[in-house]
């Protein structure tokens, strides 16, 4: 289901503190890779204090803007950004121009990825034709053409009836549905979280209940049809509570949260900077804390960047005119390390698991492991490296990061994806 460039396979040896939450390892070691495969893991008496070697990351939620908006991102630039961020696999969303809703569009993307993707890339297809929420796509044919999952990301499936049919029919395709939960009549026109800050600024509110109500609906339908669902970019406390309850009741649900929702709140919108405008919006400290709690107890299995590149001239506009979304691939680890690990809120191993094995399992992709005989999917991190995020920092074609001009601690030193060194700082 993943496609990438044919390239040489590398041989190298890395000595660092090896942290593999899947294998349960946290010890200094030297990992030897020959022709792209891990051939030896040898205990080392010491390792450089700040260097951590871990399974490389998997991002279940990336916008590559191809086809249609190649000025904002291409498969080549988006996967270069992923490599720089420590990722060995990413999954692209289908809300492109045209929408990925037929096998021919999907096959062309897979073909393109074989030519230019630096890291293995999976593609999702739409749940409904044109993402209009009216008719189902040909899911079986799309799955055969390589669709990793189905999603109308960017818009919700407003009709409960269609959602139920999509869930039932997804069994034929044997792929999960990834759901963007938003009750459109409650969020319509909304620019930011509805609360104290929106009341003061006068920006129209996008209330938490618009997300959590849809989360509850989709969990009820998934339980009724007994089909797995993956909930995208959760932002509200009530949504986390709903996922926890549903899972306890036996619903097969996985859930993601983004680095920006885990690290920031709607206070950021006071700047009126359009790089603080995302969908779903940044919410309150209470919501942020609930997401972190969900990350800690496993209710949130995945950290997904929702990397959403936008042209500079489109973001450089009054808040209400600017599009939703921020980039994230190249800042995810540093942001999480700075705002969650170094503050003591979340252990490093939890962050590493939710960035790698969690999303791989959720979407049925190979789980990156550091074990002899496994393909090398490694990320070497420097936990102490300080850097300042600037527009010049990015391999992505877009620089609409909420972290611009901020100082972060933690950097990706090297990324090995599918046996090949794809990034070396």
């Amino acid at each position, binding site marked *: 289901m993943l496609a990438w460039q044919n390239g040489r396979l590398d041989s190298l040896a890395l000595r660092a503190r090896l942290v593999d939450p899947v294998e349960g390892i946290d010890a200094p070691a030297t990992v030897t890779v020959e022709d792209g495969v891990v051939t030896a893991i040898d205990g080392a008496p010491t390792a450089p204090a700040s260097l951590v070697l871990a399974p490389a990351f998997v991002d279940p939620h990336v916008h590559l803007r191809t086809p249609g908006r190649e000025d904002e991102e291409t498969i080549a630039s988006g996967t270069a950004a992923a490599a720089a961020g420590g990722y060995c696999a990413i999954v692209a969303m289908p809300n492109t121009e045209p929408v990925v809703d037929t096998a021919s569009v999907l096959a062309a993307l897979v073909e393109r990825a074989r030519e230019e993707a630096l890291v293995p890339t999976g593609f999702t297809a739409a749940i409904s034709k044109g993402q209009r929420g009216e008719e189902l796509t040909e899911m079986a044919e799309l799955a055969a053409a390589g669709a990793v999952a189905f999603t109308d990301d960017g818009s919700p499936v407003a009709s409960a009836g269609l959602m139920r049919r999509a869930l039932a029919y997804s069994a034929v395709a044997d792929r999960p549905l990834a759901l963007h939960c938003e009750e459109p009549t409650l969020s319509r026109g909304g620019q930011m979280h*509805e*609360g104290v800050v*929106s009341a*003061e*600024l006068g*920006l129209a509110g996008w209330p938490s209940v618009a997300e959590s109500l849809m989360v509850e609906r989709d969990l009820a339908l998934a339980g009724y049809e007994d089909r797995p669902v993956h909930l995208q970019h959760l932002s509200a406390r009530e949504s986390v509570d709903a996922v926890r309850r549903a899972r306890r009741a036996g619903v097969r649900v996985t859930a993601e949260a983004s680095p920006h929702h885990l690290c920031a709140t709607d206070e950021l919108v006071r700047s009126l900077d359009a790089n603080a405008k995302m969908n779903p919006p940044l919410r309150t400290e209470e919501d942020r804390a609930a997401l972190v709690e969900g990350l800690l107890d496993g209710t949130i299995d995945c950290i997904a960047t929702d990397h959403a590149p936008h042209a500079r001239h489109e973001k450089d506009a009054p808040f*209400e005119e600017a599009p939703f979304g921020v980039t994230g691939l190249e800042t995810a680890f540093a942001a999480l390390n700075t705002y969650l690990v170094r503050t003591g809120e979340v252990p490093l191993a939890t962050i590493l698991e939710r960035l790698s094995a969690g999303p791989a399992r959720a979407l049925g992709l190979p789980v990156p492991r550091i074990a002899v005989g496994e393909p090398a999917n490694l990320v070497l991190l420097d936990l102490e490296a300080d850097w300042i995020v600037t527009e010049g920092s990015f391999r992505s074609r877009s620089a609409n990061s909420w972290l611009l001009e901020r100082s972060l601690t933690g950097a990706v030193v090297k990324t090995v994806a599918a046996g090949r060194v794809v990034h070396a700082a």
Partner: protein
Amino acid sequence: MSASVERPRRHLLGVGDLTREDAERVLDTARGLERTLDREVKKLPTLRGRLVVNLFYESSTRTLASFELAAKRLSADTMTLRSSGSSVDKGESLRDTALTLAAYDPDVIVVRHPHIGAPHLVAGATDAHVVNAGDGKHQHPTQALLDLFTIREALGRLEGVAVAIVGDVLHSRVARSLVEALLLVGAEPLLVGPPTLIPRGIEATGCDVSHSVDALAHADVVYVLRMQAERMESAYVPSLREYTALYGVTPERVRPGQVVMHPGPMNRGVEIDPRVADSGASLVTAQVRSGLVVRMAVLYDLLTAPGLRVVAPVLEVA
């Protein structure tokens, strides 16, 4: 060491840009300027050679007229660009328009825009002082200052004055700026309206909220907001008729000694009864006159260096 210390350019983007001292200084300057309005020759040479650009992306009668007249009364050159008939309609971005204007080297750009943060964007793109003349539902700081001025002239004080703001607070930049300004000077804002038109969470700013028109009785000032007919389409209220019955400011709901204000334009018979609008309690025309002198004071304040500032110094120049 450099000989001169670079001062940050000053803007009036929101009430939040002002300290209490700033606000009171502007009101004092406005009072000095008001006396010049009674002269036969009303023009002052203070801002001769300065350029004030009005950049209006939203229709406006009184705000635009009063900024234009304020600049002219201070002898500044003025230029007004409206969204119709300019490159604005040709799809030019706000930043590009701001950069184009910057080439004329304006001293002040007055911006009105339907979207929040537009004046901030202009401030970031040019070297001019920027005055926000209304951005979306966010801020309208000169309206707030003129309302403070009007209240102070009418009641002789601001500290402790209870101001009930009644109506569609949710969609009102006038209400947001005024609440902030009233809190800044020690007055006591109270918001009155149906729950669907009061923003959730607004109490956190420090104002009180009531859904009952009876709450008006406790106020020194009844400030009536414009009720727009399009609010009915989105079901914020079931009908104008019911709104008027519940919240319309009628003579029966105004007690002796209260004053009534409205930012205009008024919907007579909807949010305000004509008998109230035309009564002795109404400060509506005083607000318009205040608008002129307060905007003169704002332009004056932005374009003169701190330290040189004294109460109504324009009188000396004239």
